[in-house]
């Protein structure tokens, strides 16, 4: 009962932990960014789930329905998605420059290149 009723929240937790684990455990910078994306996406799903109202229809004013789902979290998360895209773009641009400067996108090689290993 609990599992099925809160199904999307369990998905959120699963995705969040997967993403966070990838960011921490992966040495490849591209994989880190993918992990970061999964992590952020889980938060998007969380917000969208919060906006759901049982039996509510799409939030477009009409004579036929009285119960609407909450549009505000969707609007908020639209902003967060834009932020996520900007972050990913910046991260990829940085990785490109790192690749040019160090000749590698592996964390180990970069640390070794700077003599910090």
């Amino acid at each position: 009962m609990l599992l099925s009723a809160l199904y999307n929240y369990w998905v959120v937790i699963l995705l969040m932990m997967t993403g966070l684990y990838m960011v921490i455990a992966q040495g490849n910078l591209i994989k880190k960014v993918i992990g970061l994306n999964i992590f952020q996406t889980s938060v998007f799903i969380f917000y969208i789930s919060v906006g759901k109202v049982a039996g509510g229809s799409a939030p477009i004013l009409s004579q036929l329905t009285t119960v609407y789902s909450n549009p505000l979290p969707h609007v908020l998360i639209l902003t967060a998605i834009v932020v996520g895209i900007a972050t990913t773009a910046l991260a990829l641009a940085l990785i490109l420059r790192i690749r040019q400067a160090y000749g590698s996108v592996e964390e180990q090689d970069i640390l070794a290149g700077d003599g910090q290993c």
Partner: protein
Amino acid sequence: MLTHLPILQVILPLVAAPSCMILQRSRLSWLFTVLVSLAAFVVSALLLQQVMAEGVIRYSLGGWDAPWGIEYRIDALNAWVLFIVTAVSTAVIAAARTSIEAELGASRQTVFYTLYLLCFAGLLGIVATGDVFNVFVFLEISSLSTYALIAMGRDRRALWSAFQYLVLGTIGATFILIGIGFLYMMTGTLNMLDLAERLPAVESSTAVLAAFAFILVGICLKLALFPLHLWLPNAYSNAPSIVTAFLAATATKVALYLLVRFTVTVFGIDFSLSALPLQSLFILLGLAGVFVGSAVAIYQSNIKRMLAYSSVAQIGYMIIGIGISTVVGLQATLLHLFNHALMKAALFLALAGVAYRIGGCSLEQIRGLGRSMPWTMGAIAIGGASLVGMPLTAGFISKWYLIAASIDSGFWPLALLIVAGSLLSAVYVWRLVEAGYLREPQSGQLAAEPGEAPLGLLIPTWILVLANLYFGVETSLPVSVTEMAATYLLGGAP
């Protein structure tokens, strides 16, 4: 015009940023940025004056009243932090031209000033807004531009530091976003005041507790509170000198403001202290930050890195003030916020001068600098004295209040530990002074002695240094504002 000051504070740099991109000439864009920063400073001074005279200012964006619209709400705390950020930014950017020309090259300067203005707008937005989701948006505006600014450093390590900061910063910001989601889920509002009113009814719920934990960790990541400080030394030491001066003096201060705003206003100090053992947590982490930061700073040979670790230690002091959680403790934190911004900006600007003339700033390289660059080295020495907390400098005042606060609340050992921490900072400051004044210049250095730093850099540096001395003696402005802010925050009369 006067009624629109709160929005003017944020919208001015925000609109100026893309406009700056149109100005193709780098000198012109520098001048433009200085003027915008100066205008923002005037606005913040007017706001501060208005708040001190008339109390809280409320401003509804677009005429939509809260909770429907976004509300900007300026009380003594916001006005104070806005004042600090704009004042330091104006001094730093006025000094920026020569240093940026030398470190960035001709082609990237306009982009630099655009990013700078964006970051500035983001920081001001975080402080001015009274809406928690707005906080997240402005936080990301300032963070994204900060990552790009750091990546502009000369060394390739700047890229790697920027990437590390990007990953940690994004995790921190997303944590805050999750926390805000929980808060909205439980209360149905995003307005800070509404949240403060509705939270007590649901405060026993686990969701609120989870929100608190997520927001706390997220902010502490941004704040570089020990042990979440790992991104800070790399980012500060590899960024362009001007960026370091700006970030050290403003970004962590704004994060600290957020911490105070969330723990004291939104969640309420009673909830914050009872939900987690926050008092002992803050005091212990703060002390750990003070000692670890100072001890590591002593062993650094790169001065920028040394001062970056010292920032970790100074953040520790501010956190201790919040941990004590009395009016005087909070006041000490807010005072140190101001004083630390002054001293770190002065120190990092002086270092920008050193880097400009000598091309680096390791302890080896500044040997004998007291003779060849007396003004710059003097600024470092006085800034350092303020960092240690010597009497007659600004740093002394905030340490004094912090010690008074800990004795007032009966934390005797804490007062002693704070003094011990100051002694540690005296050690690394002494290493600077010793290298600058008592050591002979490195043999085999360039035949020509490096001259004094350019005047454009030296004058703003010395304005900040003199401010350090002035506010070490004449304390009525910071003390009265912070007292008002602290009593208002903890529920006294405004």
